[in-house]
């Protein structure tokens, strides 16, 4: 397992490192030297160390330089420590390569090949005699590992681990960061229990509250009963001890918000101060989730799969894992579908008519931004008058004036009586786009005469395929008296529970909030109710990434007919 260095190995490593250094010299010469590590406060070192770990940027502002696979030069801006060790520092397992933990709690104790997760106290109690694969790191041995890839046990790390050239002051800053990375369990780990909360905003109906709370509570109850089996023989051995040592009971608080959304942040902060929790599970709102999202970012509190169609859309925020981008994603799909059509006439001139609601605005924003990203010119957007106020002549007047080839109608079924206007425009009818989510149960009531000219964004699995997937959710619905499958609240909650269950197993006994999100990021794709596929990856925060485009079929009891592949690009 361990091997001594080959003669000349360090010289061979040094040569490319020197090459990197020489290449970097002219740039470095222009940069003002960073203050020595000793002159920095602990907080300053943590900020600079975090930037090294996460972004691969030295305190000087230059990229970190490293060598992988023997002689492949890498700039820190391409990838850095966080790429493999992940944000919580517990490492990853991908492509047959294990990246070992680099967090404080693990670096400060010896590492063992067998049963590596047992604590030193447990090893003593179990009378385990096997020697460690490496002793606890010191600053000197950790610096040596980072520079050469060799640990104090004499084991060479896999060549994919970068060997970094770092000056002593820069190394001291990185080591300070690692000495504080996932050093202690996160708040909400109290005794033998992991504390969670879920959030309910004031407008949510009692039925929908129950549709979310019943499956979560059933899961928590089932999870807590699991410990009753720990007296079984299989848990008495060393492996069983390691396994059961990772188990914590669960407790769930329900945080009910009141009043206006701009007060929710303060209410949530008060809840958290009084009742520290490890993460939020689900949560439900009919409105904009952003106040809760922002609270989670500020508090560095994970929130897993809230039931919302109005998530905050961000490429960089970290703490909320959503099912999808909601309405925004439907708008994106409309843009991508239209752009990809073989019939360029449909995309000749696009008009958005937008109801002034959070849903309408999110749909329009999704279309606008995706359309621009596809290199298409800006389109005109007009506000729709209040619901039901636009009749066929009103819509016809807008179409006469704007002469679009496609009109996006981001409103509800109140637009139906006006849709005849789509047929009046010359030899070619105007194409319309509507959102299935916004139309709700009325989607199939679309007037028959316009069905061939109206596309519908549909963010879920095809309806005729759904029942066999949704049926799995029944396993957690005991006690739910009123069922409303059309809301998808229970089925989405079931899906959240499945991802959580796997994440708790993968998290093992490393109860750090970032690690929980890291473990979800490393999960394989999941086929669960509602969405065609939930896929994950480090930093990926919207698990379902596509949408179908449908049309309403013919007849008095029509079905939705799929007109597209799962639109993702």
């Amino acid at each position, binding site marked *: 397992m361990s091997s001594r260095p080959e003669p000349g190995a360090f010289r061979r490593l040094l040569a490319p490192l020197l090459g990197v250094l020489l290449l970097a010299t002219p740039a470095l010469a222009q940069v003002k030297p960073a203050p020595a590590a000793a002159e920095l406060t602990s907080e300053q070192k943590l900020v600079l160390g975090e930037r090294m770990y996460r972004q691969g940027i030295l305190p000087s502002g230059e990229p970190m330089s490293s060598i992988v696979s023997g002689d492949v030069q890498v700039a820190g801006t391409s990838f850095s420590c966080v790429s493999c060790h992940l944000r919580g520092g517990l490492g990853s397992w991908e492509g047959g390569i294990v990246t070992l933990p680099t967090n404080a709690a693990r670096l400060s104790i010896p590492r063992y090949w067998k049963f590596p997760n047992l604590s030193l106290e447990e090893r003593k109690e179990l009378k385990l005699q096997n020697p460690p694969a490496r002793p606890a790191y010191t600053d000197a041995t950790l610096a040596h590992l980072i520079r050469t890839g060799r640990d104090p046990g004499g084991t060479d790390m896999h060549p994919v681990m970068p060997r970094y050239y770092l000056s002593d002051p820069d190394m001291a800053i990185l080591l300070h960061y690692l000495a504080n990375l996932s050093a202690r369990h996160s708040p909400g780990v109290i005794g033998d229990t992991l504390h969670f909360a879920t959030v309910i905003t004031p407008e949510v109906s009692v039925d929908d509250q129950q549709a979310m709370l019943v499956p979560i509570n059933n899961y928590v109850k089932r999870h807590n009963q699991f410990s009753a089996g720990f007296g079984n023989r299989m848990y008495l051995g060393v492996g069983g001890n390691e396994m059961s040592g990772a188990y914590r009971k669960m407790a769930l608080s329900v945080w009910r918000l009141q009043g206006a959304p701009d007060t929710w942040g303060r209410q949530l902060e008060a809840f958290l101060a009084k009742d520290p929790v490890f993460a939020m599970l689900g949560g439900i709102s009919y409105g904009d989730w952003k106040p809760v999202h922002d609270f989670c970012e500020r508090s560095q509190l994970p929130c897993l799969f809230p039931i919302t169609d109005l998530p905050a859309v961000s490429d960089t925020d970290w703490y909320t894992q959503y099912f999808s981008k909601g309405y925004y994603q439907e708008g994106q799909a409309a843009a991508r579908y239209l752009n990809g059509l073989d019939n360029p006439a449909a995309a000749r001139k696009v008009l958005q008519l937008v109801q002034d609601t959070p849903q309408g605005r999110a749909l329009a924003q999704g279309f606008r931004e995706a359309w621009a990203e*596809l290199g298409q010119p800006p389109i005109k957007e007009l506000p729709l008058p209040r619901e039901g106020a636009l009749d066929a002549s009103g819509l016809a007047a807008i179409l006469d004036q704007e002469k679009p080839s496609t009109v996006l109608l981001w409103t509800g079924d109140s637009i139906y009586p006006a849709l005849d206007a789509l047929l009046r425009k010359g030899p070619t009818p105007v194409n319309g786009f509507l959102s299935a989510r916004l139309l709700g149960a009325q989607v199939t009531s679309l007037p028959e005469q316009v069905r061939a000219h109206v596309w519908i964004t549909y963010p879920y699995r095809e309806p005729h395929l759904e029942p066999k997937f949704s049926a799995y959710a029944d396993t957690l619905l005991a006690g739910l008296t009123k069922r409303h499958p059309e809301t998808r609240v229970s089925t989405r909650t079931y899906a959240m529970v499945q991802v959580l269950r796997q994440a708790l197993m993968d998290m093992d006994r490393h109860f750090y909030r970032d690690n929980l999100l890291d473990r979800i990021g490393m999960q394989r794709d999941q086929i669960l109710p509602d969405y065609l596929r939930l896929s994950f990856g480090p930093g990926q925060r919207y698990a379902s990434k596509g949408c179908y485009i449908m049309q309403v079929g013919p007849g008095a009891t029509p079905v939705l007919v799929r007109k597209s592949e799962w639109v993702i*690009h």
Partner: protein
Amino acid sequence: MRRISMALGMTAVVLSAQAPPPYTRTLETYTVPDLVLVNQDGAKVKLKGLLDSGEPIILDFIFGTCTTICPVLSAGYANLQAKLPPGGPKIHLVSISIDPENDTPKVMRDYLKRYRAKPGWDFFTGRREDIDKVMNAFNAYIPNKMSHYPLTLIRDPKTGKWIRIFGLMSSSEFMAECKKAGLL
């Protein structure tokens, strides 16, 4: 029990990870599927036309948020581009996403920018069904992107055969393989 077997499995991988075998090299014949992928600029590209064009091609399978293998493969591509002499032979570097849901053209553009990719390195995505067909065609199919493996395919421009390199190469080994294949 599942956890125990996982722990044992992981231990085995750790052991093998500490002492990686040298990469393996085989010569293969592949039939490129006739389908359309999308590159980092959003342009639709016929894969068959691209890979059977006769120009020197190197192909790998990666994804934008990959933790371990893809960054190293991509650093290898970046190093190769940096070492190619100006005005010298042109090698078309092709990366194909195995996470098409997430790898949109924008994600792919950002990825290439991170690696300071020069013209001649293209990143492709597509429909999941098509990506699966491409992976199958190159005997590289994996059902779960997290369990993918390091694979580099070099097309011999004279014979049209593919040199299949399983494992990670150093920069000098990569250059040597390109020379051996007649690309340099």
